[in-house]
């Protein structure tokens, strides 16, 4: 369920198009002050990106914009046009988790799961640029994602397992 409109009182409402997970999505009647996170969640129904701090500290809202990992709470949606946006929903089809996603489940890296989509995005980005990261590299790369439940031990385990499995496969 997404909100349908905004009142004219909120200011100039424009139509713009976001390219999300390979599809052009038109955004109509949105207030220009809406963050990318808000528009993804509330207007495009992509609820997998989570908001937990609204200031780029926790990483829960991480998405890829033109391949760059960033916090969607810090980006104005109306400024993210003409860019390739990938959200957690674009990582793998529903019911067919990616290797990283499955490793998180298997390793016990998920508890409440609120931080998980952001961590999955950050992990994919890390392994993309560094297929065989050291433990310290993993800690550094994922230190922008706060998890309050797990103490991170099982997350590191999951990332290392994916790295090893990919190496074996290749």
């Amino acid at each position, binding site marked *: 369920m997404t909100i349908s409109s905004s009142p004219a009182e909120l200011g100039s409402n424009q139509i713009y198009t976001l390219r999300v997970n390979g599809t052009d999505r038109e955004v109509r009647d949105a207030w220009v002050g809406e963050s990318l996170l808000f528009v993804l969640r509330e207007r495009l129904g992509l609820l997998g990106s989570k908001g937990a701090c609204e200031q780029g500290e926790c990483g*829960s809202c991480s998405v890829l914009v033109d391949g760059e990992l960033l916090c969607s709470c810090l980006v104005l949606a109306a400024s993210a046009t003409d860019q390739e946006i990938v959200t957690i929903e674009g990582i793998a089809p529903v019911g067919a988790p990616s290797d990283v996603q499955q490793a998180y489940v298997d390793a016990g890296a998920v508890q409440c799961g609120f931080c998980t989509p952001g961590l999955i995005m950050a992990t994919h980005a890390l392994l993309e640029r560094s297929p065989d990261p050291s433990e310290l590299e993993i800690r550094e790369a994922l230190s922008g994602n706060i998890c309050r439940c797990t103490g991170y031990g099982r997350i590191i385990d999951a990332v290392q397992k994916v790295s090893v499995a990919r190496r074996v496969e290749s």
Partner: protein
Amino acid sequence: MTAVEPVLGERTLPGRIGDSPTRPDGVAKVQGSFAFSGDMSADGFLWGATLRSPHPSARIRSIDLSAAWRIAGVEAIVTADDVPGKLTYGLIASDQPVFASDTVRYVGEPVAAVAAIHPEVCRRALAAIVVDYEVLEPLTDPERAIDPSVAPIHPDGNVIRRQRIVCGDPSVQGEIQVEGTYEIGMQDQAFLGLEAALAVPDPGGAGVELHVATQWLHEDRHQIAACLDLADEQVRLVLGGVGGAFGAREDISLQVHTCLLALRTGRPVRMAYSREESFLGHVHRHPARIWMRHHADRDGRLLNIEARFVLDGGAYASTSAAVLVNAVTHTQGPYKCDNAIVDGYAVRTNNLPCGAMRGFGVVQACFAHEGQMDKLARACGLDPVEIRLRNAMQTGDRLITGQVIENVAPVERCILETAALPLPDEPVGGHDGDPMRLPGGAGLTADRQHIRRGIGWGVSIKNLMYSENFDDYSTARCRLADGVVSLKFATAEVGQGFITIAGQIARTVLGVDDVELEPIDTAIGSAGSTSASRQTWMSGGAVDGACRLVRERLFELVAARHGIDALRLAIDGRDVVDTMGELRVAVAEASSGIVIEETFEHHHRPTEHLDELGQGNCHTAFAFVAHRAVVDVDPELGLVKVVQIATAQDVGRALNPLSVIGQIEGGIAQGLGLAVMEEIIQTDGRVRNASFTDYLLPTMLDMPPVLTTLVEEPDPMAPLGAKGVGEPPCISSTPAVVAAIRDAIGRDLDRVPVRPFDIAL
């Protein structure tokens, strides 16, 4: 020790007790399709938002809503005048207004709420509400709150509870005496999933359905219904996906407001807190000031403990009275002591309200008693391990409340197993010399030669379940049909993994593979709260009980069919077997075409109120744990890098070892946070750091490797032999880290979190 009844087939098939199957919600959570409470929506919904007091203490002269009403898109504005039922709520005492009407008592207290078509319209409406405050001098010093000459800031008075304990002969003097005053800062639960709810009104306003992230659906419902002037049955609660809890969702926050707006507008209303609002809008860990004097003989054996506790409860009572009882009754820690005199206060101030947070009063007591044990060790010339072993409590020992520890109490084993875990083999900064491993990390501020390493210990005892005559029972229903089990309970799954072990229990008891979980809501009896490390014991006991009742009926059916005594039957793997004969029939076949359904309530044994002298069997059960921390400290800049934590925890029996490890590592991260970084800072009742930029939480770079040994001695008192495991990890990990810092720099540190200037100045 009595062994727990063995279950045939246990640990032989996947997904049974003792195995570590994955979470049933795991794939949805990693794919982003799991619905948290903030993801809930409904046709035609409105956004809700809350106006909060900017003052810690003020009288409200008037509230002018006219400008806010003129904003297009505003559909409702409600204040105290619009509350149809009871004007206050609260877990133990109903002392907190739904909306402040004449007085505000803390910064962040709700004054009004609006519903509008867009969050930005809500924000503008809140900004347009004019509240005329007469600002008063806040009461922020808890010691002053004890003073009877200070005017009460609430009709219920400033002392929420005083509890003394007098045990044995408190005049006993030890040859060795050590003394200290310890301070604990205000910690926030800082769950990631902010408070959020969706309220959907029934047609005609006959009731309301609330989807909310909470720890205790039935208690929420009871408080909400009273404020809305509805019967409990007219309010239906459904658990929205919970993004962590840690105590902060035990109290009401936005529940009544959201329902009220929905009933007022006749439309669904979504409310979601911002992070700043979350810091203001839920209860926190009580800041505490604790004085202790320990008396011992020359061999370091405890003879007497004197102590005084002052807990700052903030503006409203919440669970402060129970937190105080936990604190004072855990004064001695996991150590024998025959004599004690303790005085404790939980008081009301104009600071943020405090209530439940993981550890619930025991965190505070433990930081003090472990500081004392280290002082005692030094005074006696013993090392920290030896002093603890000499005093370690055992089953059968008596607490200073007179209560005998009847649980398994492997304190000595926890200490020895922790000591047996290897210390880090790498030098300061690691073998690779990467400066990221030094205190200060990426700041590159550390000079390796000046870094000092220290080792410290913490050991603790924690009560499990509720105390003082509270019957916090749990209910579960089990249904078996055609080899498939479905389970129904109202147990709040907050991330801890109860939904995983519920299935494991059912599979083990009934020999099935397929277990379905019904929605978690108030359509069944209460499960009690997901707190006090109680759900494995209580709801695990309820699921186990319901499954056993179903199994009995299944056995009766099979026995009748085959003309044998049902008592001869057992579950072996996936089959019902005759233990005295040849019969073996698959559960799927035996249950084909029939439906067996049973509901079971698990109650723990009764407990008692403490008397005036703090005597009474007030607690239900206990668990124990030891922690050892290794830290590197930069004494010049006062920065700390925790290098390793080792722990051995008394878990009774690990139903799902991977889940237990997750609780242990996660709890230790919160203990580390309290030790070196986490504190809500208030000045004159105003919060200085209500954001994740300014309230520091441990990141992956702050958390060291954790070495864990599970001490499995099944507890005959626990329904499945399993003790709760959630709280102990965050109790003695904090003093262990602080002890390690003291060891590194050779200085007393009597306050957490330890700040750079506590070390460097």
